[in-house]
């Protein structure tokens, strides 16, 4: 089974702190994603990475950055946490679809619930 592991299920941070959310997948997926989940808003894409050191902004990248130094690991960084970044953060991974026959489904981690006080 595909396993996507997020380092922390629950975090509480103070405004202005630097926050790291880590995600590791074990299926050699090329793609990795960070989504933010808020009630009534569904899942919104923050950043997407299709290869090591490659990244692409999603719909809501402001206030976030990412790092992908190894294929299996994708980190989300909040340089200076703010209260409006209190949310559930979901990491996902998938195989690349270009030239392939897979349907591009995402495999998700369990989520990291971040509270910024």
């Amino acid at each position: 089974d595909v396993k996507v592991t997020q380092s922390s299920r629950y975090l509480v941070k103070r405004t202005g702190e630097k926050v790291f959310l880590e995600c590791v997948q074990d299926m050699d997926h090329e793609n990795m994603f960070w989504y933010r989940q808020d009630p009534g808003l569904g899942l919104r894409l923050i950043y997407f990475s299709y290869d090591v050191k490659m990244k692409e902004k999603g719909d809501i990248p402001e206030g976030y950055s990412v790092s992908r130094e190894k294929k299996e690991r994708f980190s989300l960084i909040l340089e200076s946490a703010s209260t409006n970044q209190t949310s559930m953060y979901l990491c996902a991974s998938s195989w690349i679809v270009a030239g392939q026959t897979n349907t591009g489904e995402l495999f998700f981690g369990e989520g990291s619930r971040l509270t910024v006080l």
Partner: protein
Amino acid sequence: AQTVTQSQPEMSVQEAETVTLSCTYDTSESDYYLFWYKQPPSRQMILVIRQEAYKQQNATENRFSVNFQKAAKSFSLKISDSQLGDAAMYFCAYRSGDTDKLIFGTGTRLQVFP
């Protein structure tokens, strides 16, 4: 830009009954994929069912089936013989054939009553 709309924030069903969750999408593409994901309380999101747009036949997975109406851009999920374990948030998602990214709807919370 493509959008996915789930107009039912909450639904409820009696155990063993059937429930249908609605999803509509907006796209001008002809090559795309549609998905239903389930997110149980405090557990990870898992894929329930997928549909390729080029396939006319509706996808089924055991008690889960879809009603894919391509012209109407509708992709509803039918859960038959509902079980308590079906209680979860359900998200509809769309992927264009030329991208790896999925676009999600806002979700429908399904409650199952004994």
